[in-house]
Protein backbone atom coordinates (compact mmCIF):
# COMPACT_ATOMS: atom_id res chain seq x y z
CA UNK A 1 0.00 0.00 0.00
CA UNK A 2 1.29 3.45 -0.83
CA UNK A 3 -0.02 6.98 -0.41
CA UNK A 4 -1.37 9.02 -3.28
CA UNK A 5 -0.20 12.61 -3.54
CA UNK A 6 -2.83 13.59 -6.10
CA UNK A 7 -4.74 15.75 -3.64
CA UNK A 8 -4.96 16.57 0.01
CA UNK A 9 -6.93 13.43 0.88
CA UNK A 10 -3.63 11.53 0.72
CA UNK A 11 -5.40 8.20 0.12
CA UNK A 12 -3.14 5.61 1.71
CA UNK A 13 -4.79 2.48 0.36
CA UNK A 14 -3.22 2.50 -3.09
CA UNK A 15 -1.61 -0.55 -4.70
CA UNK A 16 0.82 -0.25 -7.57
CA UNK A 17 2.54 -2.58 -10.01
CA UNK A 18 6.10 -1.48 -10.75
CA UNK A 19 7.94 -2.46 -13.91
CA UNK A 20 11.32 -1.14 -15.09
CA UNK A 21 11.44 1.52 -12.36
CA UNK A 22 8.11 2.94 -13.45
CA UNK A 23 4.63 2.53 -12.09
CA UNK A 24 2.79 0.42 -14.63
CA UNK A 25 -0.58 0.01 -12.95
CA UNK A 26 -2.31 1.91 -10.15
CA UNK A 27 -5.15 0.35 -8.19
CA UNK A 28 -7.73 2.13 -6.03
CA UNK A 29 -6.58 5.69 -6.79
CA UNK A 30 -8.95 7.95 -8.67
CA UNK A 31 -8.14 9.16 -12.16
CA UNK A 32 -6.39 12.25 -10.88
CA UNK A 33 -4.32 10.22 -8.45
CA UNK A 34 -3.47 7.53 -10.99
CA UNK A 35 -2.17 10.17 -13.40
CA UNK A 36 -0.05 11.76 -10.68
CA UNK A 37 1.34 8.43 -9.51
CA UNK A 38 2.31 7.38 -13.01
CA UNK A 39 4.68 10.34 -12.99
CA UNK A 40 5.41 13.06 -15.47
CA UNK A 41 6.09 12.36 -19.11
CA UNK A 42 8.53 15.20 -19.41
CA UNK A 43 11.26 15.02 -16.76
CA UNK A 44 13.08 18.20 -15.86
CA UNK A 45 16.83 18.33 -16.49
CA UNK A 46 19.38 20.50 -14.70
CA UNK A 47 20.06 23.71 -16.58
CA UNK A 48 21.49 27.21 -16.21
CA UNK A 49 20.24 29.96 -18.51
CA UNK A 50 18.30 27.35 -20.53
CA UNK A 51 21.53 25.45 -21.24
CA UNK A 52 22.04 21.93 -19.86
CA UNK A 53 24.30 21.85 -16.82
CA UNK A 54 25.21 19.30 -14.20
CA UNK A 55 23.21 19.21 -11.00
CA UNK A 56 26.08 20.28 -8.73
CA UNK A 57 26.76 23.42 -10.74
CA UNK A 58 23.02 24.21 -10.85
CA UNK A 59 22.79 23.92 -7.08
CA UNK A 60 25.88 26.13 -6.61
CA UNK A 61 24.52 28.78 -8.98
CA UNK A 62 21.13 28.70 -7.25
CA UNK A 63 22.81 29.33 -3.89
CA UNK A 64 24.81 32.20 -5.38
CA UNK A 65 21.70 33.88 -6.82
CA UNK A 66 19.87 33.62 -3.51
CA UNK A 67 22.88 34.87 -1.55
CA UNK A 68 23.33 37.92 -3.77
CA UNK A 69 19.66 38.82 -3.91
CA UNK A 70 18.49 41.79 -1.90
CA UNK A 71 14.98 40.47 -1.44
CA UNK A 72 14.63 36.81 -2.38
CA UNK A 73 11.38 34.87 -2.08
CA UNK A 74 10.93 31.15 -1.55
CA UNK A 75 7.58 30.11 -2.89
CA UNK A 76 5.44 27.04 -3.62
CA UNK A 77 5.57 24.25 -1.02
CA UNK A 78 2.08 22.81 -1.38
CA UNK A 79 3.42 19.84 -3.35
CA UNK A 80 6.48 19.30 -1.14
CA UNK A 81 6.97 16.94 1.78
CA UNK A 82 6.92 18.24 5.35
CA UNK A 83 10.66 17.61 5.50
CA UNK A 84 11.30 19.80 2.44
CA UNK A 85 9.01 22.49 3.85
CA UNK A 86 10.88 22.56 7.13
CA UNK A 87 14.17 22.86 5.21
CA UNK A 88 12.59 25.66 3.17
CA UNK A 89 11.72 27.58 6.34
CA UNK A 90 15.27 27.10 7.60
CA UNK A 91 16.62 28.39 4.29
CA UNK A 92 14.33 31.42 4.42
CA UNK A 93 15.61 32.20 7.90
CA UNK A 94 19.20 31.88 6.83
CA UNK A 95 18.65 34.18 3.86
CA UNK A 96 16.36 36.63 5.62
CA UNK A 97 14.03 35.85 2.76
CA UNK A 98 10.29 36.08 2.19
CA UNK A 99 8.49 32.77 2.30
CA UNK A 100 4.99 32.24 0.96
CA UNK A 101 2.95 29.35 -0.38
CA UNK A 102 -0.07 28.76 -2.59
CA UNK A 103 -2.40 29.14 0.41
CA UNK A 104 -1.88 32.91 0.25
CA UNK A 105 -4.40 32.99 -2.58
CA UNK A 106 -6.21 29.83 -1.54
CA UNK A 107 -7.41 28.55 1.83
CA UNK A 108 -4.70 30.13 4.03
CA UNK A 109 -7.02 32.42 5.94
CA UNK A 110 -9.35 29.58 6.82
CA UNK A 111 -6.56 27.23 7.85
CA UNK A 112 -5.20 29.96 10.10
CA UNK A 113 -8.61 30.14 11.80
CA UNK A 114 -8.60 26.38 12.23
CA UNK A 115 -5.09 26.41 13.70
CA UNK A 116 -6.08 29.24 16.01
CA UNK A 117 -9.07 27.13 17.02
CA UNK A 118 -11.63 29.72 15.92
CA UNK A 119 -13.68 26.95 14.35
CA UNK A 120 -14.78 23.65 15.70
CA UNK A 121 -12.91 21.24 13.45
CA UNK A 122 -12.83 17.46 13.36
CA UNK A 123 -10.99 14.70 11.54
CA UNK A 124 -12.21 13.05 8.37
CA UNK A 125 -12.36 9.79 10.29
CA UNK A 126 -14.84 11.46 12.66
CA UNK A 127 -16.86 12.54 9.64
CA UNK A 128 -16.92 8.96 8.38
CA UNK A 129 -17.86 7.47 11.71
CA UNK A 130 -20.29 10.05 13.01
CA UNK A 131 -21.47 12.66 10.52
CA UNK A 132 -25.11 12.70 9.47
CA UNK A 133 -25.29 16.09 7.72
CA UNK A 134 -22.63 17.08 5.20
CA UNK A 135 -22.60 20.49 3.59
CA UNK A 136 -20.40 21.09 0.56
CA UNK A 137 -20.22 24.84 0.24
CA UNK A 138 -18.48 26.32 -2.80
CA UNK A 139 -16.69 23.03 -3.14
CA UNK A 140 -16.87 20.49 -5.93
CA UNK A 141 -15.15 17.74 -3.99
CA UNK A 142 -16.34 15.16 -6.49
CA UNK A 143 -13.98 16.66 -9.07
CA UNK A 144 -11.28 18.22 -6.87
CA UNK A 145 -10.87 15.57 -4.18
CA UNK A 146 -12.57 12.75 -6.05
CA UNK A 147 -12.66 10.20 -3.22
CA UNK A 148 -13.92 12.59 -0.55
CA UNK A 149 -17.51 11.43 -0.75
CA UNK A 150 -16.68 7.74 -1.10
CA UNK A 151 -13.91 7.46 1.51
CA UNK A 152 -15.07 9.79 4.22
CA UNK A 153 -18.32 11.63 3.92
CA UNK A 154 -21.47 10.44 2.17
CA UNK A 155 -21.14 6.88 0.94
CA UNK A 156 -19.15 4.88 3.49
CA UNK A 157 -20.59 3.03 6.46
CA UNK A 158 -19.15 4.42 9.68
CA UNK A 159 -19.28 3.36 13.31
CA UNK A 160 -22.49 5.23 14.13
CA UNK A 161 -23.63 5.43 10.51
CA UNK A 162 -24.03 1.79 9.63
CA UNK A 163 -26.60 2.40 6.94
CA UNK A 164 -24.41 4.86 5.10
CA UNK A 165 -25.85 7.29 2.65
CA UNK A 166 -29.15 5.51 2.02
CA UNK A 167 -30.65 6.37 5.37
CA UNK A 168 -28.08 7.76 7.75
CA UNK A 169 -26.65 10.75 5.94
CA UNK A 170 -27.84 13.85 4.11
CA UNK A 171 -25.48 15.57 1.68
CA UNK A 172 -26.13 19.21 0.84
CA UNK A 173 -24.47 21.35 -1.83
CA UNK A 174 -24.48 25.14 -1.86
CA UNK A 175 -22.91 26.46 -5.04
CA UNK A 176 -23.27 28.86 -7.91
CA UNK A 177 -23.52 26.03 -10.43
CA UNK A 178 -24.72 22.48 -10.48
CA UNK A 179 -21.36 20.81 -10.00
CA UNK A 180 -20.86 17.06 -10.00
CA UNK A 181 -21.03 17.19 -6.20
CA UNK A 182 -24.34 19.06 -6.42
CA UNK A 183 -25.66 16.38 -8.78
CA UNK A 184 -25.09 13.79 -6.07
CA UNK A 185 -26.81 15.98 -3.48
CA UNK A 186 -29.90 16.15 -5.74
CA UNK A 187 -32.84 17.37 -3.63
CA UNK A 188 -30.49 19.26 -1.34
CA UNK A 189 -28.77 21.48 -3.87
CA UNK A 190 -29.05 25.22 -3.15
CA UNK A 191 -28.04 27.32 -6.11
CA UNK A 192 -26.93 30.80 -5.15
CA UNK A 193 -26.04 33.76 -7.35
CA UNK A 194 -22.40 34.61 -8.00
CA UNK A 195 -20.91 36.22 -4.88
CA UNK A 196 -24.18 35.43 -3.10
CA UNK A 197 -22.55 33.42 -0.30
CA UNK A 198 -22.45 36.24 2.21
CA UNK A 199 -26.13 36.94 1.84
CA UNK A 200 -26.92 33.24 2.03
CA UNK A 201 -24.94 32.88 5.28
CA UNK A 202 -26.81 35.85 6.72
CA UNK A 203 -30.20 34.43 5.66
CA UNK A 204 -29.23 31.09 7.12
CA UNK A 205 -28.05 32.52 10.45
CA UNK A 206 -31.31 34.52 10.52
CA UNK A 207 -33.35 31.40 9.81
CA UNK A 208 -31.48 29.52 12.53
CA UNK A 209 -32.58 32.11 15.03
CA UNK A 210 -36.17 32.02 13.83
CA UNK A 211 -36.26 34.90 11.32
CA UNK A 212 -38.04 34.28 8.05
CA UNK A 213 -35.63 34.94 5.17
CA UNK A 214 -36.62 37.50 2.52
CA UNK A 215 -35.81 35.27 -0.44
CA UNK A 216 -36.40 31.59 -0.94
CA UNK A 217 -37.78 31.40 2.59
CA UNK A 218 -39.18 27.88 2.34
CA UNK A 219 -35.96 26.25 1.24
CA UNK A 220 -33.68 28.21 3.58
CA UNK A 221 -35.93 27.40 6.55
CA UNK A 222 -35.86 23.76 5.48
CA UNK A 223 -32.04 23.87 5.33
CA UNK A 224 -31.83 25.55 8.74
CA UNK A 225 -34.08 22.83 10.11
CA UNK A 226 -31.90 20.02 8.74
CA UNK A 227 -28.79 21.69 10.14
CA UNK A 228 -30.35 22.32 13.52
CA UNK A 229 -31.38 18.70 13.85
CA UNK A 230 -27.97 17.35 12.86
CA UNK A 231 -26.28 15.13 15.42
CA UNK A 232 -22.86 15.62 13.89
CA UNK A 233 -22.57 18.02 10.99
CA UNK A 234 -19.69 19.09 8.79
CA UNK A 235 -19.38 22.10 6.50
CA UNK A 236 -16.75 21.55 3.83
CA UNK A 237 -15.65 25.01 2.82
CA UNK A 238 -14.45 25.13 -0.77
CA UNK A 239 -12.49 27.78 -2.54
CA UNK A 240 -15.75 29.11 -4.04
CA UNK A 241 -16.96 30.20 -0.62
CA UNK A 242 -13.55 31.45 0.50
CA UNK A 243 -13.15 33.65 -2.59
CA UNK A 244 -16.67 34.91 -2.27
CA UNK A 245 -16.55 36.02 1.37
CA UNK A 246 -12.91 37.16 1.12
CA UNK A 247 -11.66 38.55 4.43
CA UNK A 248 -15.05 38.29 6.05
CA UNK A 249 -14.36 34.87 7.54
CA UNK A 250 -15.92 35.96 10.81
CA UNK A 251 -19.43 35.51 9.44
CA UNK A 252 -18.53 31.87 8.96
CA UNK A 253 -17.25 31.77 12.53
CA UNK A 254 -20.60 33.25 13.61
CA UNK A 255 -22.49 30.59 11.64
CA UNK A 256 -20.34 27.90 13.27
CA UNK A 257 -21.15 29.34 16.70
CA UNK A 258 -24.87 29.01 16.01
CA UNK A 259 -24.50 25.35 15.12
CA UNK A 260 -22.96 23.62 18.13
CA UNK A 261 -23.02 20.21 16.43
CA UNK A 262 -21.24 21.41 13.33
CA UNK A 263 -17.60 21.27 12.34
CA UNK A 264 -15.90 23.40 9.72
CA UNK A 265 -13.33 21.84 7.42
CA UNK A 266 -11.48 23.78 4.73
CA UNK A 267 -11.16 21.81 1.50
CA UNK A 268 -7.52 21.79 0.49
CA UNK A 269 -6.39 21.00 -3.04
CA UNK A 270 -2.66 20.35 -3.19
CA UNK A 271 -1.45 17.44 -1.17
CA UNK A 272 0.60 19.19 1.49
CA UNK A 273 -0.54 22.80 1.61
CA UNK A 274 -1.77 22.30 5.13
CA UNK A 275 1.62 20.84 6.08
CA UNK A 276 3.33 24.08 5.11
CA UNK A 277 0.74 26.19 6.93
CA UNK A 278 1.16 24.16 10.09
CA UNK A 279 4.97 24.24 9.96
CA UNK A 280 5.17 27.99 9.43
CA UNK A 281 2.46 28.59 12.02
CA UNK A 282 4.42 26.59 14.57
CA UNK A 283 7.56 28.58 13.78
CA UNK A 284 6.12 32.09 13.45
CA UNK A 285 2.41 32.15 14.39
CA UNK A 286 1.47 32.87 10.75
CA UNK A 287 0.51 30.46 8.00
CA UNK A 288 2.01 32.32 5.03
CA UNK A 289 3.29 35.73 3.76
CA UNK A 290 6.25 35.96 6.13
CA UNK A 291 9.58 37.75 5.88
CA UNK A 292 12.34 36.68 8.15
CA UNK A 293 14.54 39.40 9.54
CA UNK A 294 15.64 39.30 13.11
CA UNK A 295 12.04 38.21 13.71
CA UNK A 296 9.28 36.90 11.47
CA UNK A 297 7.19 39.69 9.96
CA UNK A 298 3.80 38.94 8.43
CA UNK A 299 2.44 41.39 5.88
CA UNK A 300 0.21 41.24 2.86
CA UNK A 301 2.97 42.64 0.70
CA UNK A 302 4.80 39.36 1.26
CA UNK A 303 2.13 37.44 -0.63
CA UNK A 304 3.40 36.26 -4.01
CA UNK A 305 0.71 38.18 -5.88
CA UNK A 306 1.48 41.47 -4.10
CA UNK A 307 5.25 41.00 -4.27
CA UNK A 308 5.10 40.50 -8.02
CA UNK A 309 2.67 43.37 -8.46
CA UNK A 310 4.93 45.69 -6.48
CA UNK A 311 8.03 44.24 -8.13
CA UNK A 312 9.57 44.00 -4.68
CA UNK A 313 11.44 40.71 -5.02
CA UNK A 314 14.59 40.22 -7.04
CA UNK A 315 14.96 36.44 -7.02
CA UNK A 316 12.49 33.60 -6.67
CA UNK A 317 12.96 29.99 -5.69
CA UNK A 318 9.97 27.87 -6.67
CA UNK A 319 9.37 24.34 -5.50
CA UNK A 320 6.24 22.25 -5.24
CA UNK A 321 4.21 24.60 -7.39
CA UNK A 322 3.88 26.00 -10.89
CA UNK A 323 3.02 29.68 -10.35
CA UNK A 324 3.16 30.50 -14.04
CA UNK A 325 0.19 28.25 -14.67
CA UNK A 326 -2.05 29.95 -12.14
CA UNK A 327 -0.97 33.56 -11.61
CA UNK A 328 -2.54 36.45 -13.53
CA UNK A 329 -0.88 37.17 -16.86
CA UNK A 330 0.01 40.74 -15.87
CA UNK A 331 2.49 39.46 -13.28
CA UNK A 332 4.20 36.99 -15.51
CA UNK A 333 6.36 39.49 -17.38
CA UNK A 334 7.94 40.60 -14.10
CA UNK A 335 8.36 36.99 -13.03
CA UNK A 336 10.21 36.33 -16.27
CA UNK A 337 12.50 39.30 -15.70
CA UNK A 338 13.96 38.13 -12.38
CA UNK A 339 16.14 35.05 -11.80
CA UNK A 340 13.86 32.10 -11.04
CA UNK A 341 15.18 28.85 -9.60
CA UNK A 342 12.83 25.96 -10.19
CA UNK A 343 13.05 22.68 -8.26
CA UNK A 344 10.57 20.19 -9.69
CA UNK A 345 10.46 16.62 -10.99
CA UNK A 346 8.75 17.68 -14.21
CA UNK A 347 8.99 20.34 -16.89
CA UNK A 348 6.43 23.01 -15.98
CA UNK A 349 5.51 26.40 -17.41
CA UNK A 350 7.60 27.96 -14.63
CA UNK A 351 10.61 25.75 -15.35
CA UNK A 352 10.50 26.93 -18.96
CA UNK A 353 11.22 30.52 -17.94
CA UNK A 354 13.58 29.66 -15.09
CA UNK A 355 17.22 30.69 -15.01
CA UNK A 356 18.16 27.59 -13.02
CA UNK A 357 16.34 24.28 -13.08
CA UNK A 358 17.07 21.51 -10.59
CA UNK A 359 15.25 18.20 -11.10
CA UNK A 360 14.03 16.41 -8.00
CA UNK A 361 12.61 12.99 -7.22
CA UNK A 362 8.81 12.67 -7.29
CA UNK A 363 7.83 12.79 -3.64
CA UNK A 364 5.67 9.92 -2.47
CA UNK A 365 6.96 7.69 -5.27
CA UNK A 366 10.69 8.21 -5.69
CA UNK A 367 11.34 9.74 -2.28
CA UNK A 368 9.57 9.31 1.03
CA UNK A 369 8.65 11.65 3.84
CA UNK A 370 5.41 12.81 5.37
CA UNK A 371 2.52 15.11 4.56
CA UNK A 372 -0.47 16.58 6.38
CA UNK A 373 -3.93 15.60 5.18
CA UNK A 374 -6.53 18.36 4.80
CA UNK A 375 -7.89 17.58 8.28
CA UNK A 376 -4.47 17.77 9.96
CA UNK A 377 -3.60 14.08 10.15
CA UNK A 378 0.03 13.28 9.35
CA UNK A 379 0.35 10.63 6.64
CA UNK A 380 3.56 8.83 5.67
CA UNK A 381 4.71 8.88 2.08
CA UNK A 382 6.79 6.08 0.69
CA UNK A 383 9.62 6.16 -1.82
CA UNK A 384 9.02 2.94 -3.70
CA UNK A 385 10.55 3.46 -7.12
CA UNK A 386 14.34 3.31 -7.33
CA UNK A 387 15.89 6.33 -8.98
CA UNK A 388 18.91 8.59 -9.13
CA UNK A 389 17.18 11.87 -8.41
CA UNK A 390 17.80 13.93 -5.28
CA UNK A 391 14.80 14.48 -3.02
CA UNK A 392 13.67 18.13 -2.76
CA UNK A 393 14.70 18.01 0.93
CA UNK A 394 18.27 17.12 -0.04
CA UNK A 395 18.43 19.79 -2.74
CA UNK A 396 17.41 22.44 -0.21
CA UNK A 397 19.98 21.16 2.29
CA UNK A 398 22.67 21.31 -0.40
CA UNK A 399 21.70 24.91 -1.26
CA UNK A 400 21.96 25.78 2.44
CA UNK A 401 25.41 24.20 2.64
CA UNK A 402 26.56 26.24 -0.33
CA UNK A 403 25.54 29.56 1.19
Amino acid at each position, binding site marked *: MITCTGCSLLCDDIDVVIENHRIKEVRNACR*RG*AAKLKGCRNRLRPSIDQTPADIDTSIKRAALILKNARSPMLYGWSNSTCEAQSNGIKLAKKLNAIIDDTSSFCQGLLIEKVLKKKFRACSLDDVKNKADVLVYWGSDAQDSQPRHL*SRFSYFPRGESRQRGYEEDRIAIAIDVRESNTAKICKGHFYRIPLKGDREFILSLTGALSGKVPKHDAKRILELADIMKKAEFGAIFVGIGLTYSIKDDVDILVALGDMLPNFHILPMVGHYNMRGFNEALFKETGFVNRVRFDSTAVHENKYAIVEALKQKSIDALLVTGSDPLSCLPGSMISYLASIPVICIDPCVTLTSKISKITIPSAVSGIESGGSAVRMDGKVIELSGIVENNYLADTEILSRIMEEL
Partner: protein
Amino acid sequence: MPTVMELYKLLPKTNCKKCGESTCMAFAVALLSRKKKVSECTPIIEEMFKKDREKLESLLLPSSGAGETGMIVHTELCTGCSNCVVACPVDVANDPRGAGTGGAPTNDKVIFRVVDGKVVASNIKECRRFGKNRVLCYACIDPCPTGAIEFV
Protein backbone atom coordinates in the same frame (compact mmCIF):
# COMPACT_ATOMS: atom_id res chain seq x y z
CA MET B 1 -29.96 4.02 -26.05
CA PRO B 2 -32.52 3.78 -28.86
CA THR B 3 -36.20 3.35 -28.10
CA VAL B 4 -38.26 0.32 -29.10
CA MET B 5 -40.11 2.52 -31.60
CA GLU B 6 -36.87 3.62 -33.27
CA LEU B 7 -35.85 -0.02 -33.72
CA TYR B 8 -39.31 -1.09 -34.87
CA LYS B 9 -39.38 1.52 -37.61
CA LEU B 10 -36.27 0.01 -39.15
CA LEU B 11 -37.66 -3.55 -39.25
CA PRO B 12 -39.60 -4.95 -42.28
CA LYS B 13 -42.89 -4.63 -40.26
CA THR B 14 -44.40 -7.69 -41.98
CA ASN B 15 -44.87 -9.74 -38.80
CA CYS B 16 -43.53 -12.76 -40.73
CA LYS B 17 -42.54 -14.55 -37.48
CA LYS B 18 -39.33 -15.92 -39.05
CA CYS B 19 -37.39 -14.61 -36.08
CA GLY B 20 -39.46 -16.67 -33.67
CA GLU B 21 -41.30 -13.66 -32.24
CA SER B 22 -45.00 -13.13 -32.93
CA THR B 23 -44.63 -9.56 -34.24
CA CYS B 24 -41.93 -7.18 -35.46
CA MET B 25 -42.68 -5.05 -32.39
CA ALA B 26 -41.95 -8.02 -30.12
CA PHE B 27 -38.70 -8.57 -32.01
CA ALA B 28 -37.78 -4.90 -31.47
CA VAL B 29 -38.32 -5.36 -27.72
CA ALA B 30 -36.18 -8.51 -27.79
CA LEU B 31 -33.44 -6.60 -29.67
CA LEU B 32 -33.41 -3.87 -27.09
CA SER B 33 -33.10 -6.30 -24.21
CA ARG B 34 -30.36 -8.12 -26.16
CA LYS B 35 -32.29 -11.40 -26.19
CA LYS B 36 -32.19 -11.46 -30.00
CA LYS B 37 -29.63 -10.41 -32.59
CA VAL B 38 -30.38 -8.40 -35.74
CA SER B 39 -29.25 -11.37 -37.86
CA GLU B 40 -32.13 -13.48 -36.48
CA CYS B 41 -34.49 -11.43 -38.63
CA THR B 42 -33.81 -13.26 -41.88
CA PRO B 43 -35.69 -10.91 -44.24
CA ILE B 44 -33.60 -7.92 -43.15
CA ILE B 45 -30.46 -9.64 -44.43
CA GLU B 46 -31.77 -9.00 -47.96
CA GLU B 47 -30.13 -6.30 -50.00
CA MET B 48 -33.20 -4.01 -50.10
CA PHE B 49 -33.06 -3.62 -46.30
CA LYS B 50 -29.28 -3.01 -46.22
CA LYS B 51 -29.55 0.59 -45.08
CA ASP B 52 -32.09 -0.21 -42.36
CA ARG B 53 -29.96 -3.10 -41.15
CA GLU B 54 -26.86 -0.96 -40.91
CA LYS B 55 -28.79 1.73 -39.04
CA LEU B 56 -30.15 -0.88 -36.63
CA GLU B 57 -26.70 -2.27 -35.96
CA SER B 58 -25.25 1.16 -35.35
CA LEU B 59 -28.09 1.99 -32.94
CA LEU B 60 -27.46 -1.20 -31.02
CA LEU B 61 -23.68 -0.82 -31.02
CA PRO B 62 -23.41 0.98 -27.67
CA SER B 63 -25.00 -1.95 -25.88
CA SER B 64 -22.84 -4.56 -27.61
CA GLY B 65 -20.19 -4.32 -24.87
CA ALA B 66 -22.72 -4.91 -22.11
CA GLY B 67 -22.22 -7.89 -19.84
CA GLU B 68 -24.88 -10.42 -18.98
CA THR B 69 -26.56 -7.97 -16.64
CA GLY B 70 -26.62 -5.31 -19.33
CA MET B 71 -24.03 -3.19 -17.55
CA ILE B 72 -21.80 -0.89 -19.57
CA VAL B 73 -19.01 1.14 -18.00
CA HIS B 74 -18.18 4.21 -20.06
CA THR B 75 -14.56 4.43 -18.96
CA GLU B 76 -14.06 7.74 -20.75
CA LEU B 77 -16.59 9.31 -18.34
CA CYS B 78 -15.30 7.62 -15.19
CA THR B 79 -13.25 9.70 -12.75
CA GLY B 80 -12.38 6.75 -10.51
CA CYS B 81 -14.06 8.37 -7.51
CA SER B 82 -15.07 4.97 -6.11
CA ASN B 83 -18.61 6.05 -5.23
CA CYS B 84 -19.97 2.94 -6.96
CA VAL B 85 -17.38 0.70 -5.26
CA VAL B 86 -18.59 1.87 -1.85
CA ALA B 87 -22.31 2.23 -2.64
CA CYS B 88 -22.92 -1.12 -4.34
CA PRO B 89 -24.79 -3.30 -1.80
CA VAL B 90 -23.04 -6.42 -3.10
CA ASP B 91 -19.64 -4.85 -2.44
CA VAL B 92 -20.78 -3.83 1.04
CA ALA B 93 -22.02 -7.34 1.82
CA ASN B 94 -18.96 -9.09 0.38
CA ASP B 95 -16.35 -6.67 1.76
CA PRO B 96 -17.89 -4.86 4.72
CA ARG B 97 -14.58 -3.73 6.21
CA GLY B 98 -12.97 -2.68 2.94
CA ALA B 99 -15.26 -1.29 0.24
CA GLY B 100 -18.17 -1.02 2.70
CA THR B 101 -16.34 1.49 4.85
CA GLY B 102 -14.98 3.56 1.99
CA GLY B 103 -11.60 1.91 1.62
CA ALA B 104 -10.00 -0.08 -1.14
CA PRO B 105 -11.55 -3.52 -1.69
CA THR B 106 -9.83 -6.15 0.45
CA ASN B 107 -10.94 -9.24 -1.46
CA ASP B 108 -11.87 -10.43 -4.93
CA LYS B 109 -15.56 -10.79 -4.27
CA VAL B 110 -16.50 -7.20 -5.03
CA ILE B 111 -18.13 -6.18 -8.29
CA PHE B 112 -16.39 -2.82 -8.69
CA ARG B 113 -12.75 -1.88 -8.33
CA VAL B 114 -10.74 1.02 -9.71
CA VAL B 115 -7.73 0.28 -11.90
CA ASP B 116 -5.65 3.05 -13.44
CA GLY B 117 -8.21 5.61 -12.35
CA LYS B 118 -11.16 3.92 -14.02
CA VAL B 119 -13.74 1.52 -12.68
CA VAL B 120 -13.65 -2.11 -13.75
CA ALA B 121 -16.58 -4.47 -13.12
CA SER B 122 -16.12 -8.15 -12.41
CA ASN B 123 -18.10 -10.89 -10.60
CA ILE B 124 -20.96 -9.54 -12.63
CA LYS B 125 -23.20 -12.51 -11.82
CA GLU B 126 -23.34 -11.23 -8.25
CA CYS B 127 -25.08 -8.05 -9.47
CA ARG B 128 -28.57 -7.69 -8.06
CA ARG B 129 -29.90 -7.12 -11.56
CA PHE B 130 -28.92 -10.67 -12.46
CA GLY B 131 -30.36 -14.08 -11.72
CA LYS B 132 -33.66 -15.42 -10.48
CA ASN B 133 -34.33 -12.91 -7.70
CA ARG B 134 -33.23 -9.86 -9.67
CA VAL B 135 -34.25 -6.39 -8.61
CA LEU B 136 -34.02 -3.09 -10.43
CA CYS B 137 -31.08 -1.78 -8.42
CA TYR B 138 -29.75 1.73 -9.05
CA ALA B 139 -27.10 1.80 -6.30
CA CYS B 140 -24.17 2.23 -8.69
CA ILE B 141 -25.93 4.51 -11.19
CA ASP B 142 -27.27 7.06 -8.72
CA PRO B 143 -23.94 7.96 -7.08
CA CYS B 144 -22.24 8.51 -10.45
CA PRO B 145 -22.62 12.15 -11.51
CA THR B 146 -20.94 11.62 -14.87
CA GLY B 147 -23.23 8.79 -16.01
CA ALA B 148 -20.33 6.39 -16.45
CA ILE B 149 -22.40 3.34 -15.53
CA GLU B 150 -25.38 2.39 -17.63
CA PHE B 151 -27.61 -0.63 -17.87
CA VAL B 152 -29.07 -1.47 -21.24
